[in-house]
């Protein structure tokens, strides 16, 4: 069987199929189906400095070949993550990537300072698809200078690999990628959800209580592939690709586009065993195609 191990920004992973942030909680629910050590790594639910209640419901809407969500980062806060969730995840043999969000540059810095003392954390993923309250709610990830500043502030305290997760809601994703690379990001992950909307014709109002939400699933796969491909040619950093992956072949498309690993998001919601299935399917595909290792797939 082909070798699935990958080394990514100093992280040694048994396979390149990760659980994307937000659809997998802290792994406790999926642990009832298969071991938390099965995914290459678990990108934990996004945490903020303080506990957050998130948005009102409805938070979920169906979209053509995908879904919209406006969870609003409901989470127990970074301290509870460090105290309660991380130790449990580590005890289960998982490789854990914390996913962090802030409302200001200072909050990102404070969260990473606290995480610097967290034992066993494997990496930090910085979600910059959040509104910056110091700048009238403009999303951090849409401005190269602000994205760079967030990266620099987190870098100060981060002793583990630092992954910056890019927002697709930009004109030129390579400008953001270059800006965060210059401030010391070790890897990039992309894409986060695309801003979208669904309207209930019968009720004549938006389906989501927050009106707009993030589009994910196969509907965004072509956009995600294009952005991974562009980014891989623009910066010399390893990439974790995601967006609509539902099969081993989908994952291979991302490797061909330039990703070193991939993450599965919404797919987990509709097919709860999708991660072990794709790990197995990828091994089979590599064997059939005559690859000794997943690292032998050459990008386009």
């Amino acid at each position, binding site marked *: 069987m082909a070798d699935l191990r990958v080394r990514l920004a100093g992280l040694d992973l048994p396979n390149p199929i990760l659980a994307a942030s937000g659809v997998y909680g802290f792994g406790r629910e999926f642990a009832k189906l298969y071991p938390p050590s099965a995914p290459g790594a678990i990108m934990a639910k996004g945490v903020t400095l303080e506990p957050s209640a998130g948005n009102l*419901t*409805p938070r979920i*809407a169906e979209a053509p*070949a*995908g879904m919209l969500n406006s969870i609003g980062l*409901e989470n127990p806060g970074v301290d509870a993550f460090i105290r309660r969730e991380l130790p449990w995840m580590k005890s289960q043999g998982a490789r854990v990537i914390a996913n962090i969000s802030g409302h200001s540059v200072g909050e990102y810095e404070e969260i990473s300072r606290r995480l610097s003392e967290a034992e066993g954390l494997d990496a930090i993923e910085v979600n910059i698809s959040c509104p910056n309250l110091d700048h009238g709610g403009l999303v951090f990830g849409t401005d190269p200078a602000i994205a760079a500043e967030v990266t620099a502030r987190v870098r100060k305290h981060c002793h583990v690999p630092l992954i910056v997760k890019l927002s697709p809601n930009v004109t030129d994703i390579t400008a953001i990628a270059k800006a965060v690379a210059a401030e010391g990001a070790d890897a990039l992950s992309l894409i986060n959800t695309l801003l979208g909307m669904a309207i209930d014709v019968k009720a004549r109002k938006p389906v989501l209580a927050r009106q707009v939400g993030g589009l994910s699933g196969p509907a965004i796969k072509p956009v995600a592939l294009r952005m991974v491909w562009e980014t891989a040619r623009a910066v010399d950093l390893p990439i974790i690709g995601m967006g609509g992956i*539902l099969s081993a072949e989908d994952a291979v498309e991302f490797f061909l586009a330039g990703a070193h690993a991939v993450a599965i998001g919404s797919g987990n919601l*509709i097919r709860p065993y999708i991660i072990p299935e794709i790990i197995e399917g990828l091994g089979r595909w590599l064997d059939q195609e005559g690859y000794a290792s997943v690292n032998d797939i050459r990008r386009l």
Partner: protein
Amino acid sequence: MNDISLAKPALLISNRQIADGIYAMDLQEPGLAAEARPGQFVMLAVSEGADPFLRRPFSLAGIDGDGGKIRLIYQVSGRGTGLMAAWEAGKQVSLLGPLGNGFALDAQPGPAILVGGGMGLAPLLPLAKELRERDRAVYVFAGARSLGLLFGLSDFRAYGCMVQIATEDGSGGAAGFATLPLGQYMQAGFPGGGRASGTDGMTRGGGSQAPSLYACGPAPFLRAVAGLCRDYGVEAQLSMEERMGCGIGACMGCSVQIRTAEGIVRKRVCYDGPVFRAGEVVLDG
């Protein structure tokens, strides 16, 4: 609790219309049927591909542990349920479940009042069956927009429940919501339900134990039921609906406000519910 035994295909045995636009689907899956309890639900894949994308939540409307079968009763209300209505026996259906916590049954030995609005009647069917098997007196208040949308009444009666109906258009029973006959019943001192003060002429196993109430239906309906329960001091369990992503507690898609001693917190309908105590649920707006 909350252990997911099943994420594999179940065999569709029959799928037939039982009321206006309402279908009953019987599925063979012994593991699920053996484990399921009234008030739990399943997430059903309505397509094999990615469109429609999300699984749909449905209450268990029938649990036959010995026969290894479950029943879902669903109303065609959109794309997913529209596809389901065309399915035929022999099809493999992907189910995830049983999910959520069911109704708490052993709380009280007294009579049980079951109140269902529209599709909210579905989870009350296996509940009524189980309560009757435990020899509890069961009073069912069933409401729908019109008579053609009511289902399961003969099943409730066959289990030995007392049944009263209400329709919004007055085509059957009381004209209004099921809370209309329910309110009258409560105001009359729970006849047969054996409230300590009651001068009931139709006592049937109720004794003088306090009744417990179980309700399922749309939010405004649950609000009205919860109001009556507050007024008459009745312990109630409400089964809630919310749009769902995963159904297993991982995505926070279905998280609603719940009142606790520490104030208002969020709980997941799919994992912490779908059944909550009436006093916990925040049903504003």
